[in-house]
């Protein structure tokens, strides 16, 4: 079995600027790829920063791709 293509539960933690619409952009990006969002959590850490945590069923290769595309969103600070 190819390790790269094996799907597994993955938790992606996204640190964002607390601007309106940024949650929408993040969720939009993930769901337009067709991944099922198992769990979504969002909390405001301070006045300017929020943390979004999503859990998806995804393989390693596409995880790398989506991480880079999430980083491309202007209001995203860090993806881990």
């Amino acid at each position, binding site marked *: 079995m190819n390790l790269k293509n094996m799907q597994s539960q993955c938790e992606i933690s996204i640190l964002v600027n607390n601007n309106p619409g940024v949650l929408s952009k993040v969720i939009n990006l993930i769901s337009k790829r067709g991944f099922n969002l198992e769990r979504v959590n969002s909390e405001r850490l301070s006045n300017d920063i929020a943390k979004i945590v999503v859990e998806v069923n995804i393989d390693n290769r596409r995880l790398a*791709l989506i991480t*880079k*595309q999430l980083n*491309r969103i*202007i209001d995203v600070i860090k993806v881990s």
Partner: protein
Amino acid sequence: MNGAQILVECLKRERVNTLFCYPGAVIIPIYDELYLNPSGIRLVQPRHEQWGTIAADGYARSTGTPGVVLVTSGPGATNTVTGLANAFLDSIPLVVISGQVPGANIGTDAFQEANITGISMPITKDNILVSDVRDLSYSLKRAFIIAQSGRPGPVLVDIPKNVLVANSTFVYPETLENTPNKLNTHGSPKQIKRALKLISVSKRPLILAGGGVHFSGSLPYVNEFADKYDIPVVHTLMGNGINPKKCELRVTKQKEWAIRNCDLLIALGTRFNDDSPANSENISTETKIIHVDVDPAEIGKVLTPDVPIVGDLKSVLIHFLSAKEQILIHTDWIKELQSAPSCCLSNSSRTDVQITNELARSICRYFDKNTIVVTDLFISKPMLLELMDAISPRKLFCSSGLGTPGYALAAGIGAKLGNPETEVLVLTDQNSLQASMQELLTVRREEVHLKIMVFDHSHFETKDVLSRSDNTKKTNNGIANLSVNFAEFATALGMNSQITHCATQIEDVIGALASSSEAMLAQLTNADSDNQIHISENQLNTRSSLAG
């Protein structure tokens, strides 16, 4: 100052001199302010916002500065969607400012309300709804920076009417402290070293230059790089104009063969579009790939490179050029390339090749080296690449990412407005021009001296996508191709025009277009085809069945 005044002042600070705008209720305050303070901004109103946005695209491509569009809420904003998607796929800097219903009415399905920030989210680099007038100048500055930095792209700023009439003090940030541009990288030194090592041992290297070369201003560096390391160059539709000093390094007709048979592919500022010779199927698994791009998400998206380099192309090339690596001379490989078979010639019909060659010859003969040629995609992409090489250094623009029919006329308008002293030649065909024909009115009104050449349906046989389907060979398959006498339409508008009922007169037609001192439309028809529609007022009957 009120919001409208702040907006106009921001545009002035950004040195915007052309605004593609279409009026509407919620943006009247902006028009009022522009009337009182023209600020050196020329207002160009298209007949449809889609073509206004595409015109801004042509303007941006030809001047290197962002195209700026102003539309109203509702239909005005939604009409920009195709233009935004087009700019997004081709990475063109655009700033689209859309009016929005007053903040209190947002979400109530008000008259001419549309959630354009939601609608344009996947097709803009960034978009923002300005809910407070105090954020307006910051939002605009941010939009202009994002549109142009790193990998360029379209940005939308949605401004509700109440923000336009509200008052605030004007503060214009010259730079932003936490610049949204996170992509100011210079390429990892370790990767650059690995790349140089691969280059120094490669026997059959090939440079693949894409649009990124132009966006980063690296054209002279790519030329120098190719010359120094003796590497042949292939370019994509977005990356034309590469011309190293050693002419033998320019690979023109053998692109596909070259890509398939090289042992090292150095991809600079390109994204391996599936519709180009550099698609993933045409690249051998044995080939090593160096991929340099400013957008990290592009690296590994289609193909996994052996050496990924994320960084500004210009600085990476400067590193390559200053390295003291041993340089191999690739005479055998270059000789092999020159005698290699030309795939596009074998895939295209003979008439297509003939017409393309004649077109290229005529353009080179009658239009000077600064000419900009804008075309629709009725010519197949391999033929377009040929045309591009043949007429180089003249620029050739097309909607390579989205493939919008009607792109040529609108983008031609933008290109001409951005470069009034340059000749702009628009190549289009019946279907494409029918999509954007109302912009001929704009050509007339703005006195844009465009040269427009209209081909017939049957001129080019190899229409990429449609020709792959067997159904299109049958006559009654539901596709309604109509032929219009555009020359009569142009005459009715007061434009110079001519119509030639002979397929072989391309050179004469191009000559006539070049010698016209004003806008001119020239149409080439093949023969009297069935679905003709006459637009002159003397002939009120339409021939044949419109039911198709």
